[in-house]
């Protein structure tokens, strides 16, 4: 690995220029990310109601948070949603990528079709999804029109099932992107390895399972990170589809935080829930970043 700063023939300007170029972004990040995280953290220990105030109140907000049934529903939903969404999008994405990698005709068109949901915001597609999932207007009515009178599909309005409609819509949006990432990875694999395995008589599924997918480990991890981050931040999606309802049955931490801090005048409680979200994110991301960057240094 080269380390330009250690080379003696580099001038003074050359040594400081890189730091100078990086400095604005660094400072912006320190202030706008870490400064704001600290600000929020402090707020979670205050009695802030409608607007932020800075009177120290101890851990009352956290006590209120942990005593709130709605918060635990939101946490549970995040796990249901996160698990199914990440697993589902990953499986569908990998599957489609492998299929598309079989020297398909019209690959470009299919790829675009799989990828386009990523281009749309849920503010846009939410209306269409809501309509399709609504029992009286959408799929259920369609099936009834077609003569399947017993068909029911009322997940959107069912307290126990509404979070799963969020999973369906989220998978629709993100699995194409997973496909693109894996397809990119597949294209990057040296064909001679596959040829060699084929000559050894390995079957195609076996080659994928034993050779190709393991070689895509880095893609797998970066995809996992991207999906985790989408899952934890899911907000537009839930707001547009169910609004957290019926009641608060499909609430997730991001929507919980939003309604506490902004609609209900419980800014302190909102800050406490945000801190819990941040700590969860940090618990997942920091080990990953650590291993990732260490890995690079050794490479």
């Amino acid at each position: 690995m080269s380390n330009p700063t250690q080379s003696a023939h580099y001038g003074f300007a050359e040594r400081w220029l890189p730091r100078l170029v990086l400095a604005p972004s660094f400072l912006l990040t320190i202030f706008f990310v870490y400064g704001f995280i600290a600000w929020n953290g402090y707020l979670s220990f205050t009695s802030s109601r409608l607007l932020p105030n800075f009177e120290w109140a101890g851990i009352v907000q956290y006590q209120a948070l942990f005593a709130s049934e709605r918060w635990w529903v939101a946490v549970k939903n995040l796990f249901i949603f996160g698990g199914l969404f990440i697993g589902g999008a990953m499986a569908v994405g990998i599957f489609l990528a492998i299929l598309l990698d079989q020297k398909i005709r019209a690959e470009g068109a299919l790829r675009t079709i799989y990828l386009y949901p990523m281009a749309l915001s849920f503010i846009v597609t939410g209306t269409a999804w809501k309509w399709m999932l609504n029992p009286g207007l959408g799929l259920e009515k369609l099936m009834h029109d077609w003569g399947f009178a017993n068909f029911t599909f009322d997940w959107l309005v069912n307290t126990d099932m509404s979070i799963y409609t969020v999973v369906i819509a989220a998978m629709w949006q993100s699995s194409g992107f997973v496909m693109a990432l894996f397809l990119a990875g597949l294209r990057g694999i040296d064909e001679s390895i596959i040829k060699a395995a084929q000559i050894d008589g390995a079957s195609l599924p076996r080659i994928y399972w034993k050779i190709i997918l393991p070689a895509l480990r880095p893609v797998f991890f970066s995809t996992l990170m991207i999906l985790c981050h989408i899952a934890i931040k899911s907000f537009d999606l839930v707001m547009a589809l169910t609004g957290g309802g019926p009641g608060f049955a499909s609430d997730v931490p991001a929507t919980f935080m939003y309604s506490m801090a902004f609609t209900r005048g419980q800014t302190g409680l909102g800050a406490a829930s945000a801190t819990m979200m941040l700590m969860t994110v940090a618990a997942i991301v920091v080990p990953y970043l650590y291993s990732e960057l260490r890995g690079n240094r050794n490479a």
Partner: protein
Amino acid sequence: MQTLRITLCAAAMTVAFAANAAEVEVLHWWTSGGEAKAAGELKKMLEAKGDKWKDFAVAGGAGENAMTALKTRVVSGNPPAAAQIKGPAIQEWGDEGVLASLDDVAKADGWDKVLPKVVIDTMKYKGHYVAAPVNVHRVNWLWVNPELLKKVNAKAPTTWDEFFKTAEALQKAGIQPVAYGGQPWQDSTVFETVALGVGGVDFYKKAFISLDQNTLKSATMVKVLETYKKIKPFTDKNAAGREWNLATSMVINGKAAMQFMGDWAKGEFLAAGKVPGKDFLCVAAPGTANAYTFNIDSFAMFKLANKDAVKGQNDLASTLVSPQFQEIFNLNKGSIPVRLGADMSKFDECGKQSAKDFAADNKSGTLVPSFAHGMAMHSATQGAIYDVVSQFWNDDNMTAKSAADKLATAAKTK
């Protein structure tokens, strides 16, 4: 970075220029048919006074997005001139020290004399007027499509027994009895109406104003909850998430027979060209004929740095309370003027009834604030109660008893 800095400077200049025009920026979420018309009238009258109306409408979620936008505006030190805030929330904003005093306007226009006491108390923060009222809504209405009721030979119900009997008859005849919108605020609107009808005025006051623990857990509350839940089989499956005005249009178009909703629903009937008393009926919800849940819309005024804008702000406040505006506005919105002794001659049956009942209930002490519309408690408590009510409505496994206990817990939210 250079580009960014130039952008920043340029933007700062634009803002400085913009501030010179005497604009009145008004944050509201009156976006549906009748409401938008009413807002349009306000704009016209203000422009006649030489001020410029800057519309700041944020739609959706009964003002949820609007509140977010308002909070960030206030935090950034750049609040709108006025925002649609009402009830105890006025006190909450007052506590934050961001509201402007309207005492000068109030004195010049004699608000103390023309407004009822219950209204004055809400509009004042620590003895100073900080908000201007625009109307009084009655929440405990039942909207009826008489043609559908005629098909089962029923009259508009006045008791809950009658109501459920009629509903069953309608259902047997293949008519959907109740139009319902499954959004938290609508759930609570119906719930508080049932509470008033089943429990009575004293019960209502103890439960939702004093937040009395024993009342919230009482047998009466269990009965209220059971009655409330009994309505559910008479609604349709697609109610979840439906906007109130779409539910109203079901009654208008004969797709459903009745709807529990405040009198803003009348605006939709009128906008659709329907005649009160003939095409639709407005009756007090079962068991609530001698009580009145009120919901007063008002605009709170924010402290502004700009002098021109303050002039516009005062014009706005004065216009809002003026008899001309009160009449035009309320004819469109479905509510009644907030001024005492306002001329009701142009109003329809429903409006006249509402005004008469308001005066009568004001005297007899049976005027109660609507908690579902932010007139009775702080937003945090209200939100917690919303949660329980909506959960109970949607979760068919929850018993009325456990819901009552949860209500009591929710009432402790500060």
